[in-house]
């Protein structure tokens, strides 16, 4: 078995009386899509936030790319190659769609404190940014304000920004949400290919997509991983059916 790029061991997080993460251990292997599913409020987004460094776990360890990242800030983790999308789109509303991606591109290039050279005629940023928009099918919206594109389009833009970061692992929090039927279908195909670029930790409620994509699935209920396994394992798991899937299995 190859070494995991990202691994969590015994991560615990409590909000008041609520255990949002209860001794969670899971890992992400190179080249895989690891789906994280579970009821609403189970603690999936909370887990993503802890991996991304936006909130600190109460206890437990997170390792990324062979390194203990417990003490790194969100910024440092992002620079190490962890890219995340947000469940509720979080973009630069006044920027154009393209500028949103350019900013990410610029961050990857590492040169922020440059005060003189104009940025928006800098082909070394614009071209790759445009390429990412094309990949997610948003090229024709490149010059609209991010605030003015539709909900589904914003979800696509979230994806493009994550792509621009050229990460070593993706943390995708419900990328299918808000996508129409067509969008979901296309995104499924897209993610399928993306795993070759970097492994994906995929939080998703769209079971068609999860079952089509996941190499492994972990099920989180009340902050605890109650099952990890292949698609077939999970489909057949009675606990998971009851807690989460219902008739969808």
């Amino acid at each position, binding site marked *: 078995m190859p070494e995991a790029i990202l691994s969590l061991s015994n991560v615990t997080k409590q909000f008041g009386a609520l255990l949002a993460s209860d001794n969670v251990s899971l890992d992400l292997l190179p080249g895989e899509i690891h789906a994280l599913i579970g009821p609403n409020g189970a603690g999936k987004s909370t887990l993503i936030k802890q991996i991304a460094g936006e909130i600190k776990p109460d206890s437990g360890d997170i390792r990324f790319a062979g390194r203990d990242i417990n003490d790194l800030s969100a910024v440092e983790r992002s620079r190490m190659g962890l890219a995340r999308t947000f469940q509720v789109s979080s973009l630069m509303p006044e920027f154009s769609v393209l500028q949103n991606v350019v900013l990410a591109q610029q961050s990857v290039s590492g040169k*922020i404190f440059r005060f003189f050279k104009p*940025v928006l005629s800098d082909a070394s940023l614009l071209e790759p940014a445009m390429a990412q928009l094309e990949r997610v099918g948003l090229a024709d919206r490149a010059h609209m304000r991010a605030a003015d594109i539709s909900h589904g389009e914003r979800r696509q833009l979230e994806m493009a920004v994550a792509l621009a970061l050229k990460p070593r692992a993706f943390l995708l929090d419900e990328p299918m949400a808000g996508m129409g039927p067509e969008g979901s279908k296309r995104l499924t195909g897209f993610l399928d290919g993306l795993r070759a670029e970097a492994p994906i930790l995929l939080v998703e409620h769209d079971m068609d997509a999860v079952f089509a994509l996941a190499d492994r699935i972990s099920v989180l209920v009340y902050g605890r991983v109650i099952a990890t396994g292949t698609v077939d394992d999970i489909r057949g798991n009675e606990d998971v059916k009851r807690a989460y899937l219902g008739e969808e299995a």
Partner: protein
Amino acid sequence: MSMNRETILNIVLAALLIAVPVIAQIMGEPFIITLATKVAILGMAGVGLNIALGYGGLVSFGHAAFFGIGGYAAGILASHALNYEPIMEAPFEINGTTQMIVIWIVALIASALVALLIGAITLRTSGVYFIMITLAFAQMIYYFAISWPAYGGEDGLSIYVRNSFPGLNTLDPISFFALCAAMLGIAIAFSAVLIRSRFGLALHGARQNSQRMMAIGIAPFRVRLVAFVISAMITAWAGALYADLNRFVSPSMLSWHMSGEIMVFVILGGVGRLFGPVAGAALYILLEHLLGGMFEYWQLPLGILLLVVVLFARGGLIGLLAGERKHA
């Protein structure tokens, strides 16, 4: 590349700002030159604030602190030089100076240091908290200046002769105007380049969404801090010129009224617009000057006019004349 309306408007404004004093000079109206100089200087203070406020979304209600620091740099250095008293004697002697260039450098360094300190503390907060905590720091400096007797306290400090600049008779109004206008030009050019740069993009981003900034690996705090310091330095530079314009500094340069006034220039002209602060300062000073002599209750029509501008000219004067801003 075709010019958009704002660019044309900016050129017209710049031309006006230069033409008016030149005509005044020919007509022998030196006071109009003084007014134009005041517009240039206060506009420049606004250009500084605009970097923090307009581009960075950092609504600093304490920029008078930097304006005043610039002013006091000029006042203190000049008064020591004029009185032949060294500023300090041990461990080594530092003397005052009446050279503007030296004064400016001191103003820039002093304001940068203070801004770094204030920024490091205040930038932890945001929104209205930021507005108020910047005010708090400015008030501390203000009360300090009022009660500190060494440099005149509330009475302020006179510079009997305007400081000098190589090759220029600064006492001549039109020469001093030219100097101030040139500095304003530098400040505007710098901020124009700045906002189009990588840093400018990051600053814009930091204003809109810090969560997203962190997620793409840029620490918004650092971006904001650098912007805050740059902004403070330009405002301080303007403060040094203002001291020379009046040949006088006093704590009123540090008061919250001053902060408010600089902010009003920026908003009135158009937040985040290159020439906004200059347009705002020009309109405000023109109104103040025209109305001031006309009517005992002149601030009433001034208030009404300002109100009309906010209500009906979105994006300030520049917005009114050049249309809403396009995203770059």
